[in-house]
């Protein structure tokens, strides 16, 4: 690792007492942050700590309620990305800001064409140059839609370079990458640092922060708890700074002997988006009272697996049995009727945002509501009140879903599903984007369903979550099961190798 230099490098950007409130939530609370030339500055914090809001403010995507941004010691007004770009700030967001049907060059040049007629040659030259200097190899004339996730991220970095940025914000850049891609990214960032770039590295992954950053600032509940030189702390200290209190969901019941097989999948194959093969010959079973975790880098068939099991995607081949009933190829209604409860990865795709809590709660079981085909308003309301109470949802029956917080939306979904006491559960990314309280709640609910004998398939990109909740873990790689591990004896490295495609010869 390159040293940050003997003398204190000059500050490029300084954020002074930045505050931002959303409704009742203080997302950023008087934040001070200094970014210096030639250093990687880690911003560490849990989901909901305010990291993304802070970076959106720096990039002009969100306006702060108060506070100043200084660039090279001068106060500047950054009220749009255009201002940020002019000040030499670039950002690579978690969801890439790329125009998929356009080529790499077109994306790089976008908004910075430097003339009325596009000069694609110059952009192409830069792309090739940067590829050599920083290890950012991408073919300039390919459409972005045809690139891998790692390559798309390189295009984002190229965009920032093309705009001559001196500050590069990387928001959770490793979340979507394979371990090999992470290595390549770190090499690139290292070169950029020695080139004088100030890099903001946002993450909640301690090992990466420890490895890459020169300094690290810890955000908790909208406040900077501490800013330290990375080599003066260890991972344990950072962890306790970040979390502030020990999580409660960690205490789980002992691994259990699974009961009779409830969910049995044999030889399941399916195609995903663009009709490309996404799952091939996947087989597994989940017993009563067992949680089977599914690990894998995003895009290795997890989404399709959840969709097929939920009745949202037709498989090409294979069998899915729930308590002996074949459900492969059936629609959502029959799948639910067979006793499958489904929590999809995108909860906004499962609930109608502009409909009330009470109506969303009955949406999966319209056939059973009311007398004949007339809605029984009283029954719907009392059902809602009952579930709101049981699942401690902070909402009224008539509130529209879209007015609720993410945690409460997830609770509504849990209530709709768990109230039916399904014998099998297909759960995807159940705590993604939730804060600590809601995360704990969701995990406890899953564990308690397991106690009551449900067979649970848990798909998650959060390896810690899988290790915490699962009894066994299978790893998906390129649509196939790369290996199976007993969660009690699993270690992260082993799972990581499987996720990266190493077969089980280890």
């Amino acid at each position: 690792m390159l040293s940050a230099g003997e003398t204190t490098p000059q500050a490029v950007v300084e954020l002074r007492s930045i505050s931002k409130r959303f409704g009742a939530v203080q997302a950023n609370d008087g934040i001070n942050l200094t970014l210096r030339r030639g250093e990687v500055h880690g911003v560490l914090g849990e989901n909901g700590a305010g990291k993304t809001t802070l970076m959106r403010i720096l990039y002009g995507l969100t306006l702060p309620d108060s506070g100043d941004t200084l660039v090279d010691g001068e106060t500047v007004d950054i009220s749009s990305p255009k201002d940020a770009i002019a000040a030499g700030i670039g950002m690579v967001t978690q969801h890439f800001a790329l125009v998929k049907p356009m080529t790499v060059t077109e994306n790089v040049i976008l908004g910075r064409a430097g003339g009325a007629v596009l000069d694609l040659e110059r952009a192409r030259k830069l792309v090739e140059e940067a590829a050599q200097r920083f290890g950012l190899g991408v073919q300039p004339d390919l459409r972005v839609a045809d690139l891998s996730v790692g390559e798309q991220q390189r295009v984002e970095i190229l965009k920032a370079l093309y705009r001559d940025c001196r500050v590069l914000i990387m928001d959770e850049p490793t979340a979507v990458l394979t371990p090999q891609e992470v290595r390549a990214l770190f090499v690139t960032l290292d070169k950029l640092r020695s080139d004088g770039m100030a890099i903001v590295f946002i993450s909640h992954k301690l090992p990466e922060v420890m490895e890459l950053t020169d300094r690290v600032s810890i955000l908790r509940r909208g406040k900077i708890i501490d800013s330290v030189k990375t080599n003066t702390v260890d991972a344990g200290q950072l962890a306790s700074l970040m979390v502030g209190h020990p999580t409660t969901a960690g205490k789980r019941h002992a691994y259990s002997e699974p009961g009779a097989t409830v969910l049995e999948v044999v030889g399941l194959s399916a195609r995903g988006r663009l009709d490309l093969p996404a799952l091939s010959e996947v087989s597994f079973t989940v017993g009563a009272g067992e949680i089977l975790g599914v690990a894998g880098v995003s895009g290795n068939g997890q989404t399709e697996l959840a969709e097929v099991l939920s009745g949202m995607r037709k498989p090409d081949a294979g069998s899915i049995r729930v308590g002996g009933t074949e459900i492969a190829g059936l629609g959502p209604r029959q799948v639910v009727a067979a006793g499958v409860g489904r929590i999809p990865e995108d909860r906004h795709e499962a609930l109608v945002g502009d409909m009330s809590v009470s109506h969303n709660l009955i949406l999966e079981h319209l056939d059973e509501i009311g007398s004949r085909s007339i809605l029984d308003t009283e029954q719907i309301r009392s059902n809602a009140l009952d579930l709101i109470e049981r699942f401690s949802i902070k909402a009224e029956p008539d509130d529209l879903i879209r007015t609720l917080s993410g945690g409460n939306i997830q609770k509504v979904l849990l209530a709709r599903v768990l109230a039916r006491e399904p014998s099998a559960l297909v759960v995807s990314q159940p705590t993604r984007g939730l804060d600590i309280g809601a995360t704990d709640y969701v995990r406890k609910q899953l564990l308690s369903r397991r106690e009551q004998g449900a067979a649970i398939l848990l798909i998650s990109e959060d390896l810690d979550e899988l290790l915490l909740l699962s009894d066994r873990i299978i790893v998906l790689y390129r649509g196939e099961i790369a290996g199976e591990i007993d969660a009690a004896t699993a270690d992260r490295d082993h799972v990581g190798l499987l996720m990266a495609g190493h077969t089980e010869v280890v």
Partner: protein
Amino acid sequence: MTFIFDVLAATLRNATPLVFGTVGETYAERAGILNLGIEGTMYAGAFFGFAAAAATGSLWLGILTAIVVGTAAGALMAFLSVTLGTSQHVAGIGITLGLIGISEFVNRIYFGSADGLRRIEPFQLLEPFGPDNIFSQYGLTYIAFLVVAPLGWWVLRSTSFGLGVRAVGENPEAADAAGLSVAAHRYAALMIGGALMAVGGAFFTLASLGTFTLDIIAGRGWVCIALVIFGRWRIWRGVFGALIFAGVFSLQLRLRILPGWDAVPFELLLALPYLIIIGALAVSGRNVAYPGAYLKHYRRN
């Protein structure tokens, strides 16, 4: 042979307003906005172009007036759909109804009752190779095929403005993050598109008919919307669709006067091109990839 040349010449002529309208709508939709105001914009272009030409005696002032009216209509659509974020369907239909109402209202006031057509001397045909061949066309037809379509294609493909229009229509978040103004590009695309639509409408009154009649557009704006989808938002494919529609249209006009065809009600022949376009959509419009931000309002915060 003269029959074929006749039909080909008529095809180019009848395709002219559709080319203007289709290129105009392509710009709007490439920027992510469905402009259902097209029917009314063409109507208003036809009427106000005619009214200005009748009042001043200058056909080119008529064209200029149509451009001004169309640009204003596009700006209104932009204000409603981009600045306010109303439903694009409703805003477009409202603009169409309003512009048709205004045109007919002003027509009644200045040109009297519906009967008693007022005529002007329309544009002459350009005849670079003498009369009666397929090059014997109006100047606007030459402009449509030799300027509007190629230039429209080139601007979208090869200029930074065109790149910006495509970007805001595909992924406004990305365009915004790249420092582009989503609103400015959408306004510009809608205003350029509106101007083109209006000139397309003015072609009827200032060139092919020389007069203004009620219901003069007769759904050709809707045809352009269909052609844009048929063309999958590509200018040349849209022009190709316009030629198909105009070809069928011209063919049925000629068929009508052939012996034996008079038994078929001419209205049904007139309906044929509309049905052909629906059929073409059914064949080629299946699950096409719409611009990513089609119909989506963008607001950063």
